[in-house]
């Protein structure tokens, strides 16, 4: 990988990091467990690695933005996540911020 490619990759990951959180919070307005969440995001064009998404869910739960519960489905125990009360509030504010940034970038471009 050349220096330019490596630099681009770092910047791309940096740009994506915040967007992924927003996308996960948005998708978890409906309840999902890890795999179905990943599939739902991929169907909408946002492919996320397993090693990124599953730990991210844990982190967001630790931060109180998500609530989770173990439940049996198709004879298998799965951990289902959904947006918590605090998560809904933070998500609304983040979404506002996202719209502002998006509008500003469009204005600049």
């Amino acid at each position: 990988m050349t220096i330019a490619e490596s630099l681009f990759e770092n910047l791309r990951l940096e740009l994506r990091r915040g967007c992924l959180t927003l996308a996960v919070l948005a998708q978890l307005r409906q309840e999902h467990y890890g795999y179905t969440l990943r599939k739902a995001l991929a169907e909408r064009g946002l492919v996320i690695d397993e090693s990124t998404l599953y730990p991210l869910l844990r982190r967001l739960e630790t931060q109180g933005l998500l609530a989770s519960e173990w439940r049996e489905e198709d004879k298998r125990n799965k951990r289902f996540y959904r947006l918590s009360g605090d998560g809904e509030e933070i998500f609304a504010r983040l979404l506002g911020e996202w719209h502002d940034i998006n509008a500003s970038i469009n204005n600049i471009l």
Partner: protein
Amino acid sequence: MELLDRYLESVRKYLPWQRQDDIIAELRANLESQLEDKEAELGRPLTKEEAEAWLKEIGPPTKMAARYQPQQYLIGPTFFPVYWMVMRLTFFWVAAIYVVVNAVVIATTNGTWNSVLQACLRLPLVLMTTAAWITLTFAAIEFIVTHYPSKLPTISVSDGWPSTAMPALEDALSPKKKQRTRAHAIAEVIFGFLFLIWLLLVPQHPYVLWGPGAAFLHSSPFRLAPIWFQFYCCIVVLNVLQLGWRCVELARGAWRQAHPVQQVVMKAIGLIPLGVLLSGQVWVLLRNPALDQAQYGPTADGINQGIRLSLTVVCAIVSAQLIWEAGRLGLNAYRRRIAAMR
């Protein structure tokens, strides 16, 4: 599936023990669902090669496990700039003190080249030990602040911001010294000339230097060693050179500001008389050794030892200053070059 079990066990090894079972159970449910979907698409179980390729796509167990850990660092971005500044300052002062102390010890114990070499070889170890202690201290601060934030008073490197301790904008942007005026330059030449005359009078009229002490020195059992005359000659030559240089500057109209390189060179030349003086073995002699050796010999030895020690310390300090200024000059030149390239 055996391969998936082995993968999950490998991930488990790198997870925090309190959450291992929970994380592995969740990961297993997710990956098994994914595997089921893949097999349903194919209409058959995955071959060993396909399963290997799938797990390879998911990523190595270490990477997967690492993402479950909180971000870890010894010294975080809040404290790192302070840590780095402390490290640089401490390195400089430790190295300077080490050099001075060792120079004094070697000079006073008549050390050989071997002892100089040993002192040089010990320096990296001293610096590494210093770095280790500083790093440990900052790592401890980072750990306490990260893990017990509620039990501590707020620690912030930005406390007191904005601060009046910041350098004035003019000084920060332009580190140049205040320019000399023409009157200042003329005064320097006049006083330099008067100082030279005074200096030339010293050998014939010692009282201009010693005052009443000249008579005391004349009647004492001690006299100055010839090395002082060589030192005196060096001082005279240097002053003549400096006076000549100032006259040339004045004639050329270039008195406004001494070039930094010129300042460093003058300081380096200023080391010559000190070096000449330090090269002497004795600085004070007995006027009548045959008569006074028994009574005043030990005193003369004591005085000579004291002078040797003082000269060594002064030489080390002046050398350190010179190295510091030359380094700063080089750094500034390098920064200007980088700035010019942008």
